């Protein structure tokens, strides 16, 4: 169907196009802002800065054990769009959507409660932190990595501590170009082939959204914490977080497409605390 429009109509249509364009921009930006605010609210910026020189030997500590379960309906990710026949690589098609266990994309972390409630980032700078700097926590992996396999970032969500370097090995027999424009950390690793590894160091807490220039459907999220009290549940939703010094905290369950869940917890000096979270 082809529609020829005269000059008067052209102006009207141009205005319509502009309006649609602006609407799209406004809507999506609004969605991104809302999402960003939600995520920012959840970030561990509210935790007190941990002092590296803290002596942990005498501090009573325990851990939080429990399960996390996703009850809410998670909006499915959009399918990858594959327009043209691929001119390189072994596969003729973009990967078909594979079932994802979304519970593995949940991040659990602590916020420190203060007399005024949960401490904000600004308040946290003034809090006399007495938390251990390096508990025997869940992330013993020396250098965490996000692999590129079958046009997918694995894992999709990676929590790390500030100062950590993340590897991005390419496991696909074609190029990837990993990049991020997030204000927390922007980088562009360029194009590199299978078997090669690039890495990025993250020094600032916040959310880093990672994409691939070549495969626009690929995405990952890195949560950069300025403390070590975070973990990811296993595929059954079970998690262990700790050891944690005794005190009052808020345990947060975070998923990028769900409203976060918070639960106040009081950690004793020895007994593990059992917590079940439902998102």
């Amino acid at each position, binding site marked *: *169907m082809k529609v020829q429009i005269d000059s008067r109509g052209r102006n009207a249509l141009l205005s319509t*196009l502009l309006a649609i364009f602006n609407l799209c*921009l406004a809507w999506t930006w609004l969605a991104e802002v809302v999402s960003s605010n939600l995520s920012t609210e959840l970030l561990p910026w509210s935790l007190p800065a941990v002092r590296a020189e803290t002596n942990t030997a005498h501090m009573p500590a325990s851990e939080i054990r429990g399960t996390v379960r996703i009850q809410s309906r998670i*909006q499915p990710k*959009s399918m990858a*769009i594959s327009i043209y026949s691929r001119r390189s690589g*072994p596969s003729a098609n973009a990967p078909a959507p594979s079932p994802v266990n979304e519970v593995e994309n949940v991040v659990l972390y602590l916020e420190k409660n203060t007399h005024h409630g949960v401490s904000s980032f600004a308040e946290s700078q003034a809090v006399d932190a007495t938390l251990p700097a390096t508990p025997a926590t869940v992330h013993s992996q020396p250098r965490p990595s996000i692999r590129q396999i079958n046009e997918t970032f694995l894992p999709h969500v990676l929590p790390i501590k500030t100062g950590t370097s993340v590897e991005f090995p390419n496991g696909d027999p074609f*190029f990837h170009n990993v990049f991020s424009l997030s204000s927390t950390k922007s980088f562009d690793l*360029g*194009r590199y082939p299978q078997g090669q590894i690039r890495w990025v160091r993250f020094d600032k807490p916040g959310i880093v959204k990672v994409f691939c220039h070549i495969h626009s459907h690929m995405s990952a999220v890195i949560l950069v914490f300025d403390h070590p009290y975070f973990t990811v549940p296993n595929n059954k939703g079970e998690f262990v977080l700790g050891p944690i010094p005794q005190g009052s905290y808020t345990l947060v369950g975070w998923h990028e497409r769900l409203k976060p869940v918070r639960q106040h917890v009081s950690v004793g000096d020895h007994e593990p605390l059992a917590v079940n979270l439902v998102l």
Partner: protein
Amino acid sequence: MLRFKLVKFLLTLSFDLVWTVPALLWAGERIGFEGIADLGFTRSGIPYGAPSTPDSQTNVNGQFILLGSFQITGSLYGFYEGRVSHQEGLEGSDPRLQQTQGTPVVQGYIRYTPKLPWSLALQAGKFGTPFGEFLTRNYPQDNPLIGAPLIYSYQTTVPANIIPYGPESLLKYRYRPRASQTYNLGTGGGWLPLINYAYPTGVMVYGNPRTFDYRFAVVNSSIANPLDLGEPGQRIQWVGGGGCTIVPGFRLGTSLAEGPFLSGSVGPRLPPGTSLRDYTQRAIGFDVQYTLHHFEAYAEGIFTNFNLPNINQRLGASGYYLELKYTWSPRVFTAARWNQIFFDRLRQDASPSGNSPSPDNEASYVGVRFDQNINSLEFGLGIRITHRLMAKTSYQFNRSVGGADPKDNAFAAQLVYVFDVSNLLRIR
């Protein structure tokens, strides 16, 4: 009448968006929709050495593209593309040179991928021509510049819906009104580029076993003159291609095509005893891609010729482009593209009807090129504002060798926004 057209136009646009809602609700992650919106302006007709003159012309262009992806079963995949576009600055004798156009189905096909040990896919419907390389990255977020390569955009003197009486009338087309710049593309049945953004209807088989790739299609129109299903002039023809990825990031490819290109409207005016099928376009193309780290290089060349009624030789043209892109930072990249097209010289002095060269025009047609050789250099700067929003600007130097009007430079700026339609339609 205008109101009716406006309503019809808006319905075309809303059709694309509205029907996606139930589809998203029902299909979940087996479906995906992506929107691409771009808006730009061009300042064209700029003479050499001057930023602008009263003759320079500013045009506004914009388009909205909706892409849909459907995984019907594990081996069955569907794709859809619709567009609404507004283009200006295409002044000339052809009415399509300035228009707002809604095309509900630019592409729509089904792809079947059987589970075979060797890579193979079958595709049927309306899809982008498998000839050449640039079509795979002609979307504004993939094209680092604003213009398209000359071999895809410069319209030659070869028409699809006019039959020249002989060399004399063919040569007159060299001075026809034409777009004063090449940022805006025309499609349809008028003056033909060497390769058009062809979305023919047909079937294609393709695959990429190991480091090789191949594709072969039987379609209903030539690479220069795309025709939609149902338009007169469609003729079965073939397009093929293949390539080899020497090392990751370095690929050599080739393409071939042959078939009729004239529109069906000229059928009654063809020389006696001939048919549309006697007048064909043949083309062979080569392409190279090299990418490493933050550097990308693309080159593509084509040798093509057209067989026209009343012209006793195949009219050949060859062209190429070389495109370089470098990403300087996560947000900033630059690109440049050098293009050239060369046209054949005529070997015929008189038309079959006996017309001899006019003393006022050419002393002889022999040795005269049927169109002016042309070259173009475009360079540009791109900034990624977010991973979905990109701003680009570019400047294009165009020169016709021996051309009468040197005012051919153009400046352009463009804003491109890519978004997941699902996120627009869902409450996050």
